């Protein structure tokens, strides 16, 4: 078990390193000269050169990479080129915001998706199953900017229950920000809900047909007991994995939703940074997203092992 854990950890580190190489390479190919960007169009060649030396841009490319990577690992993420503030607090601030949104979304769609999936499996091939499946598919198919805008027009402009703009103030607590989080969280949830529902339904149907489930029924166990003890324990395994693998996307991939609601998350930060060619910001925030992806995948793998005695006890 420990061996397995260490091996997975090693793989994760390799993954992040490989990603760092790619991120660094891509930022090298972005058009424009960083030093020129910093000092401005009308600065002298000498001034540009000075900045290049200062930033280490005159050194060979692999040294530049190692310097950058070393800086990232030790916490020196550099300065944003556009806003001239340290990158690290900026990225962490946004990461924090994104986590709130992700957390709330998970809170919405995971229990609901599992519930609907199990319900559909229990009512297999009956009307309620078809309805659940059809709705899941529909919402998964509608783009977030459509559901987002519909939700805004109904709940913000129509009923005026919730704010339309989700640009939460810096320093706001989770509870203060909650009203602004609800609509974007629902928007994100609707996309993932169908997916989780289908996953849960499929694996539950499979487990319901397994010999051991039949055996449990024929032992005369009450239905709820068969379901809780025998079915769900096995059928939720794949769902758990999928949930954790979705966290990376929730943290770094909500570009459209954040844009629609003006939510200050990590996704929007990256988009803004790319638009302004803010290289240190692009690099740092991309690395954070990659790391989150890697860690949530690791957790998904480990959970699968912990929940599955067949692997755990080998």
């Amino acid at each position, binding site marked *: 078990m420990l061996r397995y854990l260490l091996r997975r950890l090693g793989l994760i580190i390799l993954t992040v390193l490989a990603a760092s190489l790619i991120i660094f390479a891509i930022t090298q190919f972005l058009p424009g000269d960083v030093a020129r960007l910093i000092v401005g169009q009308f600065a002298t060649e000498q001034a540009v050169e000075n900045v290049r030396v200062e930033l280490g841009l005159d050194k060979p490319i692999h040294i530049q990479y190692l310097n950058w990577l070393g800086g990232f690992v030790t916490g020196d993420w550099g300065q944003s080129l556009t806003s001239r503030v340290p990158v690290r607090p900026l990225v962490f601030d946004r990461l924090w915001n994104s986590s709130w949104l992700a957390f709330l979304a998970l809170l919405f769609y995971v229990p609901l998706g599992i519930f609907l999936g199990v319900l559909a499996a229990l009512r297999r091939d009956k009307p309620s199953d078809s309805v659940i499946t059809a709705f899941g598919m529909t919402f998964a198919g509608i783009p977030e900017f459509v559901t987002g805008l519909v939700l805004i027009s109904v709940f913000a402009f129509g009923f005026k229950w919730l704010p339309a703009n989700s640009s939460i103030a810096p320093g706001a607590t989770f509870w203060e920000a909650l009203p602004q989080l609800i609509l974007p969280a629902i928007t994100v949830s609707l996309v993932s809900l169908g997916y989780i529902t289908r996953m849960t339904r499929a694996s539950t149907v499979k487990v319901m047909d397994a010999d*051991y489930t039949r055996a449990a029924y*024929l*032992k*005369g*166990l009450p239905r709820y007991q068969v379901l809780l003890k025998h079915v769900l324990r096995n059928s939720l395994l794949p769902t758990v994995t999928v949930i954790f693998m979705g966290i990376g996307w929730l943290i770094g991939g909500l570009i459209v939703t954040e844009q629609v609601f003006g939510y200050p998350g990590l996704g929007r930060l990256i988009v803004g940074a790319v638009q302004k060619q803010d290289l240190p910001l692009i690099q740092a925030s991309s690395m954070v997203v990659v790391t989150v992806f890697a860690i949530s995948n690791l957790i998904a793998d480990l959970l699968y092992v912990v929940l599955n*005695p067949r692997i755990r*006890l080998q």
Partner: protein
Amino acid sequence: MSTRIDPEISPDAGLAAADQAVLEIEDVDIVYRTSGGPLHTVRDVSLRIARGESYGLVGESGSGKTTLARGAVRFLPSNGSVTKGRVRLSGTDLLGASQNEMRKLWGARIGMVHQDPSAAVNPAMRVGNQLDEMGRTHLGMSKAQARVKSLEMLNRVGMPDPEAVVERYAHQLSGGMLQRVLIASALTTDPELLIMDEPTTALDVTTEAVILDLVQELLGSVRHAVLFITHNLGVVARVCDTVGVMYAGEVVEEGPVKTVFKQPLHPYTVGLLGAVPRLTAGKADLELVAIPGFIPRPDALPPGCIFAPRCPMVIDECRAARPQLVDVGPGQRSSCIRWVDVPEEAERPRPVRDTSGESFSGYGRELLEVRDLKKYFKGRGAGKGRSAAVKAVDGISARVTEGFTLGIVGESGCGKTTFIRCVSGLEEPTAGEVLLQGNKLAPSVTDRPYDALKKIQMVFQNPDVSLNPQRTVGDIIARPVQQLGAVPKAEVPQRVAELLQAVHLPQAYAARLPQELSGGEKQRVAIARAFAAEPALVICDEPISSLDVSVQASLLNLLAELQRSAGTSYVFVSHDLAAVRHISDWIAVVYLGRLWEVGPTARIFEPPLHPYTEALLSAIPIADPEIERERVRLTGSVPSAVNIPSGCRFHTRCPRKIGDICEREEPPWRDGKKDHSICCHIPLAELAASQRHALDGMYGSADAVGSAAPAPADTGVGDAEGSSTGSDTGAEVGPDTGAEAGSGRGGS
């Protein structure tokens, strides 16, 4: 080690209970609603099982056995229902009961044991917790009380170390142990009715024997009514009092086991009994009687008698009206209108080929030679992080000549499949050589020339996965004809047609997809594909194990026939000793990657036997309830090929272990009569003497083994010779001239 159970334990109890029907099924019809319309899967079935009675329901797959049992206890899939009739459990009407009422009966008054124990135990829950559920749900016990009860039940089914077992998960227990767990679970509530649905089908033959012993013992002590579903007539003969033969959804014959097996009065029962290969006869002496044709689908039943299309004694009246079950003897009922004539028909001499004496007519030219083959797999051992080799095959040599069959037997996990995969090049051996007609073959199949590929072909166990589902039968057979057969393109269809004919399939099948064929037909296609390249050697890996008895018989006949006409050699691997006996000229017994006994087929089945062979033979349930045998049982399962026991590898399970020497030293090869060799510390004469009595019972009196057992004097010579050498290099199996065999092993 040998548990002997008197089959007639207190007959008075049986008589007194006879009136007390526990399960009564009357005129039951079961229908499945399908998109193609309703399927009447079970029709007009009646049966009753009394207290203390064990009722065996037999029939080919698709005959409706399981559907009947599930329907009777109201556990059908949602599209199935009992549309007619009555089912009562000790007077309680089951068909009228609500789902809730049924749930209270399941487990409490109706116990179930399922087919595949490794699938019927929840993989994510500790075994103990699953057992405790019975006590907690039905006996109102607390958690602690239920655990005590579970441990008691595990003890009762002879589970070694129950305290440890309850903490384990399904994947940590062997199939035999899991089946014990399920039997313990079912018996916790002491149910009136116990339904066992093919409880030993998924198990190895040695494990099956142990579980059947257990079932027999439990049935002797507990007065349950038992419904025992199986396709194996041998199993019924061992554990049941009454037998019902089901065919295409109807019971066609019923009666006391002893009567029905002695004098079956329905041609279908006769056919089933005739299809079972005997331990006493091989392909040269006897052709198995296969039942032609297939079970009709419930929506395409023939008018009149449903068995008429496959019946050898059919007359016009059979097709006129559906016959009823009628009383034909004490307790025996048959639905054949010609039941009076059945015994006479059954007595008709079976097609015996006249080969008097020359059962094995000498050896042809050498075809295949395998020299000291080893295959180690890298594996992570039980030790912390150390990797240890899994010695799947650890030094096996073999020879096969032209037109000859080498049978390889052993339990699952003994290395027999790995061995033939190495021979065919699907696995690369770790050491050793494979020679075809004297030429060394490349270890991997991808490096072998077309000519070598053409000469060695394979038939796999499961035709469902060995035939490409996307290609028609014609394409499947045509491909090797083109690729390996060097047949001009224009003649390929002609050749495919010949092959289809050779395996007795209609020409129209060339256009069909595998999914449109039955299991037996698919395996025929696989055989046709193997023969397409006109191979010199066909390797058969358990080719009949996944098929019904009657189909098995027809495939064994087919293989024998093709061998006669094409002169092909076989390496035939199976755990089924009777099938191996039927088809093989030589037999090699494999255990933990090594050979333990080799010799011409007849020699393998008479003393002296290697103790392992003896146990394998003793484990086979024989379809004759009259036969009482001394039982030799193996404990536990095959040890892991990572930690191979010291000395004789079999000593951990050997019922004839003689002492320390078995643990310390590798046993010598001892040569018996006529190329027969055994690797054991016990001298052959001693083995023979102790086994002769046991084997008298094994084959029954009617089919006594033709030749006499070898005289001790013969084996004595072999002892002296054989004992002088160790067996580090592994034994060799195959037809040698006597002199070579002697020098190969016995010489210095």
